[in-house]
């Protein structure tokens, strides 16, 4: 504990000296640096901040030093994140390579794959997309049909992937592909890394109810993928996929408490948009909804903390398995609550008559509907809890 506290003092001092003032402001989506060939820094300060963090090894503090990480413990990494949060320091680099593929590759990739891809993530050279879902394989992910034929030195890939986040801006995509057509559906899946510049790969954005199109559909038409891009064993990709999903769900569970976008907290919005009577919100229903939400978030924050402490102490607990469900449901509740608090001011779609924050609230509300669908829907999460935590018997497959 003593050691951790002196580490904290060092971190605090370093951040103080190295994080530019402009990088301690809430970040807009346009200002985020996602790396890759199309990655752009929003300012010289953003570049400086990223480079300093990269050189310090703190882009991924818990990854091994040999791949550009910091080689630090989970507790030390948490200290860095806590201290960054304390001064509102921006994340220097965003991306699912950093959040999801990197940890999975460190666990399942071979030495050459790690050497090729992990430093490239930290160095901002590669932006990754995720190719899991297909038009016919959503919640029933294991029924995926995107086919990879074994041609000896390469695989020939045909099919498509949907909900490939920002795939039109990405360089590489990691995909679940079918390498064995018969037998148990989970046992014929492999995990492939595909260069999106390869001939036969194309991507189309999908317009969403939020008016944005951050999700895409990616098509594979006779794409030749070198054999060395297979992660893990042939037909054993489902294990890699599940490990990666754990990182995805953890990330989504924490989005509410650590949102990359600036969104006002409901209790702050209440001060601006609601009438008060003797220090109390006059609308009894909204006051009740707000306190329900605040108490739930308080409990969720404590449970995140407990989950981390248990993991660090080697105690097994079901806490981690319930957090994606709880966190994303809370995020949806928050957006509904904000709309209710803003009243008609929360309904502006675009143009004049509304503040940018008001317009943003509505767009985020629409986007929040995807939170409980992506990364395993809430219903799938409940299935997982029923099976893994409660040990309830599995329903007959239909």
């Amino acid at each position, binding site marked *: 504990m003593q050691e951790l506290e002196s580490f904290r003092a060092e971190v605090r001092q370093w951040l103080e000296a190295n994080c530019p003032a402009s990088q301690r402001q809430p970040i807009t989506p346009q200002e985020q640096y996602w790396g890759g060939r199309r990655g752009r820094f929003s300012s010289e300060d953003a570049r400086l901040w990223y480079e300093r963090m990269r050189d310090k090894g703190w882009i991924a503090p818990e990854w091994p030093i040999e791949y550009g990480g910091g080689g630090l413990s989970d507790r030390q990494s948490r200290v860095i994140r806590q201290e960054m949060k304390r001064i509102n320091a921006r994340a220097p680099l965003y991306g699912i390579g950093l959040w999801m593929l990197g940890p999975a590759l460190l666990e399942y990739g071979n030495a050459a794959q790690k050497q090729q891809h992990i430093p490239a993530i930290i160095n901002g050279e590669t932006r990754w997309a995720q190719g899991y879902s297909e038009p016919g394989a959503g919640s029933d992910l294991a029924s995926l049909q995107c086919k990879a034929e074994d041609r000896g030195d390469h695989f020939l890939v045909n099919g498509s992937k949907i909900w490939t986040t920002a795939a039109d801006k990405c360089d590489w995509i990691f995909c679940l592909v079918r390498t064995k057509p018969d037998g148990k559906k989970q046992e014929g899946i492999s995990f492939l890394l595909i260069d999106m510049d390869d001939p036969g790969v194309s991507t189309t954005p999908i317009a969403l109810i939020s008016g944005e199109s951050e999700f895409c559909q990616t098509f594979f038409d006779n794409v030749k993928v070198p054999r060395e891009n297979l992660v893990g064993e042939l037909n054993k990709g489902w294990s890699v996929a599940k490990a990666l999903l754990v990182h995805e769900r953890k990330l989504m569970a924490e989005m509410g408490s650590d949102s990359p976008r600036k969104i006002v907290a409901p*209790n702050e919005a*209440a*001060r601006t948009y609601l009438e*008060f009577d003797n*220090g*109390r*919100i006059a609308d009894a229903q909204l*006051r*009740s909804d*707000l*306190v*329900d939400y*605040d*108490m*739930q978030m*308080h*409990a*969720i924050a*404590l*449970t995140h*903390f*407990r989950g981390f*402490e*248990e993991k660090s*102490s080697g*105690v097994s*607990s*079901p*806490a981690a398995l*319930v957090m994606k*469900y*709880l966190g994303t449901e809370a995020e949806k509740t928050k957006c509904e609550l904000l709309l209710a608090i803003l009243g008609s001011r929360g309904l502006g779609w675009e143009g004049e008559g509304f503040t940018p924050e008001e317009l943003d609230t509505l767009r985020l509300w629409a986007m929040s509907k995807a939170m409980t669908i992506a990364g395993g829907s809430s*219903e799938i*999460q*409940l*299935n997982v*809890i*029923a099976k893994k*935590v*409660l*040990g*309830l*018997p*599995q*329903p*007959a497959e239909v």
Partner: protein
Amino acid sequence: MPLVLNEEQRLLRDTARDFLASHAPVSALRKLRDERNPLGYEPQLWRQMAELGWASIILPEQYGGLDFGFLGLGLVMEECGRTLVASPLFASAVVGASALLLGGSSAQQVALLPKIAAGELTLALALEEYHHHRPTRIATTAVREGDDFLLNGSKTFVVDGHSADLLIVVARSAGEESGPEGLSLFLVERKLAGVSCRRTLMADSRNAADLQLDNVRVGAHQMLGEEGNGWAILAPVLDRGRVAIAAEMMGCALEAFERTVAYLKERRQFGAPIGSFQALQHRAAQMQADIELCRSVLLQALSVVDEKPGQLPILASLAKAKLNELVKRVTNEAVQMHGGIGVTDALDIGFFLKRARVTMQLFGDTGFHKDRYATLCGY
């Protein structure tokens, strides 16, 4: 506050679980109910609990206490919730001991705490006067007469009110009828002249009573804390009580839930275990998620009692409100998922359902604590 139990704490919990499973299963409460036991608990069991040190967990060693901290007391309360143990633990070792610890003069502490620690002296807090928890709505009067005070008024829902040796009476020595100013606390022997007591048989078959105080004369030295400033003691005592009862509710909810999940695996309908049906799986999984949240809230609330008492008010209200909701949901689902057998007296589930309803009212219902949480958040 790491929210993970250390080895000593786990040992205390496991010891409590083993002891209660063999010495005080739910059937012990059933027996007390069926024989209409006049005391409402087994003195022999309480002696054994005291020998294990449970009556003195939060008391300093100089008074014969274990000085183990409030979290330890919470762990024992939780285990007591699992088997619905009828005992003076809550009223004496949590509420009574806390009141003396926080507000007693050194003479009162020296005289009383060792007896509480040994389980020889039991206490009861005579607070409520209304059918909802309104801790500052006190009409019972304390009027000074020379060196004495004369107490008049009536109290209801006094836990252990008919069995405790010593009452802590909340009375008004000054101020408006519904404010915290002007409240004073008095230590009153239950058998003192003018105190009359009527045991009330409640849904949970546990101990509660209505009290009548008619010109009860107590010496000024029987006052706990300062005259008119009783709220300074009562407020933290109530918060400790809320957290401790929340711990008992956790045990009650967990036991009802685990028994229900076991039943889902065993009961077959339509040729399959009913636990394979998604309609039931999802409701069970949602309860598990709520349990995880409540576990974190409870551990934090128990920890701040000793470590960060400034955070106790908001965490006590969070814990009590969250556990109120959890125990209501879980006990209702426990009955529903057991089906027909769930509404029979032969099955223990009904005992959990009924105890849950009493604990939900004790020291503040859900609405009370949500309102308090919102007020503490500034809205």
